[in-house]
């Protein structure tokens, strides 16, 4: 192919405190090419496209747009160059109609009637049915995405960036979207397509760049590669699971059977008949791409979502219908993924946040009255044991860096002498040394007899600390398998397995 270069990215690096989001990333997008950006969550895809769209400035490296240096200071500069982006989360006003929403995103909107005609023309031309007069509040997720796409197309972009566009779509809507994208490609528009759905990429994309932990780990032509090959690159074929401690399993401490939960989160994933058991001293690692039911699983285990009693059992006692306080009393602690606002109250002090979940098991209140002295000591012991960097216990949780707060939150749960531990993303945003100490702390609790469920998107982490391994996919959990002897191939199949089954199901 001797296509013209549209955008060249060379040696781009972007670091945030504690984490390098992109390190020396280089790739090239040609005109009329659909280029896939592939990687697990946290691999640095979002940061990279934000730099292209002018939302983030790179620390190092340079970008070249049609042969000229390209450094957009803000999104409007990027748009002026011909870059358009459809975000994963829409920014639309539900109480306004389609045309009004489109007008809001334009620098100089034409008169409303003219705009409506334009929208109708573009939507017909690209086969994206959309009525400009309809209220956005009445539209489905797929239709809302069309509003965003048409908003972009009205700018006649040269490069269209799409961030995980199919995560909110039905299979039929995906078909329509792909037809549109192919038509755009025919017309010479380049598309940067971000996804972790391998089959989609194989069906749509011409080239793929694979990111892992902020670095380009490979590139390929998706049509010629198998999904498994791409998964290996995405996950890293170099994983060498550490030697497993061979310990005999204790009695089952946490049992979950046929747990189905409707998601309380908009666009969330409902859990579908999840079953597993975790024995005393066992660490169960649950992998899966974000948004496949991880948050819901944590809520159902922590007691924030209640179910029938016998769906969740602690030491064979039904707890499914109990709330968080009773489950903590029964021995279960949970650390949600979102630190600020869920695991911790942003404006409250560390002492107050220690009380938040520590009150039950640490006995920080007697007949309803809070023992602040004892609570402060508990907060201090968390800070000391987990090396939380803070001026003191009086500091508001939001003043801590993400990694430090993560250490505080995980430490708070692990220090409560728990019998069952559920943690979602234990080392998210934490630097390598702290991550290692958190993992060690988890293993220490397991060695002391706790049953542990670790939900994570970091496969390396799961393979390092888990005894058994399962994957969540669209709210379904695969049967847990011992980590020992598990190959990357098998992990890839487990993570993508449910997709395959679903297709087979439709066909059969």
């Amino acid at each position, binding site marked *: 192919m001797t296509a013209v270069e549209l955008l060249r990215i060379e040696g781009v690096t972007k670091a945030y405190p504690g984490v390098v989001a992109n390190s020396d990333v280089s790739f090239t997008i040609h005109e009329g090419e659909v280029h896939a950006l592939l990687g697990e969550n946290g691999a640095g895809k979002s940061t990279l496209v934000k730099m292209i769209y002018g939302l983030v400035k790179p620390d190092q490296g340079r970008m070249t747009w049609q042969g000229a240096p390209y450094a957009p200071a803000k999104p409007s500069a990027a748009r002026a160059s011909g870059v358009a982006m459809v975000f994963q989360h829409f920014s639309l006003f539900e109480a306004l109609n389609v045309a009004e929403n489109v007008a809001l995103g334009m620098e100089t909107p034409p008169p409303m009637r003219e705009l409506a005609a334009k929208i109708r023309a573009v939507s017909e031309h690209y086969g994206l049915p959309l009525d400009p007069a309809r209220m956005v509040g009445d539209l489905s997720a797929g239709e809302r995405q069309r509003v965003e796409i048409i908003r972009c197309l009205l700018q006649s972009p040269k490069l269209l960036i799409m961030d995980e566009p199919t995560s909110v779509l039905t299979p039929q809507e995906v078909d329509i979207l792909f037809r549109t994208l192919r038509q755009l490609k025919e017309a010479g528009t380049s598309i940067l397509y971000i996804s972790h759905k391998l089959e989609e990429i194989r069906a749509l994309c011409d080239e793929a760049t694979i990111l892992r932990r902020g670095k380009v780990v490979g590139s390929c032509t998706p049509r010629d590669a198998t999904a498994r090959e791409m998964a290996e690159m995405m996950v890293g074929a170099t994983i060498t699971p550490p030697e497993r401690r061979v310990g005999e399993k204790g009695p089952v401490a946490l049992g979950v059977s046929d747990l189905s939960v409707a998601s309380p989160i908009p666009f969330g994933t409902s859990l579908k008949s999840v079953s597993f058991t975790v024995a005393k001293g066992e660490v169960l690692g649950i992998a899966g791409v974000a948004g496949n039911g991880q948050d819901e699983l944590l809520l159902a285990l922590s007691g924030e979502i209640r179910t029938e009693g016998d769906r969740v059992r602690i030491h064979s006692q039904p707890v499914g219908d109990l709330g968080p306080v009773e489950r*903590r009393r029964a021995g279960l602690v*949970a650390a949600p993924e979102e630190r600020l606002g*869920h695991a911790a*109250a942003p*404006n409250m002090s560390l002492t107050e946040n220690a009380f*938040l979940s520590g009150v039950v098991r640490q006995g920080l209140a007697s007949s309803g009255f*809070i023992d602040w002295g004892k609570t402060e000591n508990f907060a201090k012991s968390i800070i000391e044991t987990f090396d939380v960097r803070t001026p003191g216990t009086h500091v*508001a949780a939001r003043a801590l860096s993400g990694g430090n707060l993560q250490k505080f939150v995980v430490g708070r749960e692990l220090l409560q002498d728990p019998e069952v531990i559920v943690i979602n993303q234990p080392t998210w945003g934490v630097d390598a040394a702290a991550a290692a100490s958190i993992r060690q702390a988890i293993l220490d609790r397991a060695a002391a007899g706790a049953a542990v469920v670790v939900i994570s998107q970091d496969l390396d982490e799961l393979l390092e600390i888990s005894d058994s391994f399962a994957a969540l996919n669209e709210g379904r959990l695969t049967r847990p398998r011992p980590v020992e002897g598990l190959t990357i191939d098998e992990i890839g199949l487990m993570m993508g397995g449910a997709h395959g089954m679903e297709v087979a199901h439709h066909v059969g």
Partner: protein
Amino acid sequence: MLKLERRPTPSQFWSRATPVLAVALTVVAGGIMFALLGKNPFEAIRTIFWDPLFGEFAWYLRGQLMVKAGPLILIAVGLSLGFRAGIWNIGAEGQYIMGAIAGAALGLAVFPTENRLIFPAMVMAGALGGWAWAMIPAILKTRFNTNEILVSLMLVYVAQTVLAMASTGFLRNPEGAGFPGSRNFSGYEAARNGFLWEGAGLHWGGVMALATVVAAYVLLQRHILGFQIKLSGQAPRAARYAGVKPDRLVVLCLGVAGALAGMAGLFEVSGPAGQISIDFNSGYGFTAIIVAFLGRLNPVGILFAGLLMALTYIGGEMAATNLGLPSAAIQAFQGMLLFFLLACDLLTNFRIRLAKREAH
């Protein structure tokens, strides 16, 4: 160009200084308003803030201060618990009216029996009346997820209609020659809420208000329920994670606020007001919202805010009669106080920086 920058932790200094700053700005802006109305601003401000405390009639007006502040504080403390939890009870006025009617009805039903238990029973009935009225938005919210702001506010107007019915119908004084209004409690010893300390204007309502301030302070500082209230308002998801049941909190906060407002109504009707009349309510339930925020939703702050608000009430009335200021101007003056307070509030969590304009 001015730029707002979020503080890493809320400023202790500004959280205390903003009420003072807000009062100062209100005096300045209010003075300008009075001047525009053609009055001497210094005289107007002096009449409102100085004369009630140290002027010619201070011996009487100082007592009035606690009479007015008592119900404001009692209601505002109850409201502040809900506001802290993110439960917006705007209908304290209605709960106040219904408490007064319920308590007064009990007292009037047993008239003219003399028994020491009558007054305490009336207080209980008053609390119950206000509580029941607040349970309507509470149950509608927990069962049907209605908006408690709208429901509680609308119920104020229902309560006002019930009040009119009571004073012209079922609670009307049978010996009142057909005039609207109930019997006057001042002549009924067992049901009368007399002054315990006349010079300070202290009646049982004032005692209750002070006790409530202490109780609310302990609740918020030391009790797990107070912690849950604060947590729910600041981080609802963290509250659920901590095991707080949101519905229980809605019922509790609306119930406590309703009961306290109802009690305030009873103390008023059996004391300073003396009887149920068509216009017995004087907006305490609404003013208490301002008092709650002026006091930073803190019980001790509310104590001072209630006294300050009572001062503007009394001083405002004096200014209206002595200087001929329209009562709307006094209300605007009180509104300014809340406006400036909320505006200054920003300084607690943000700092203002001078920022240079970006190059492009």
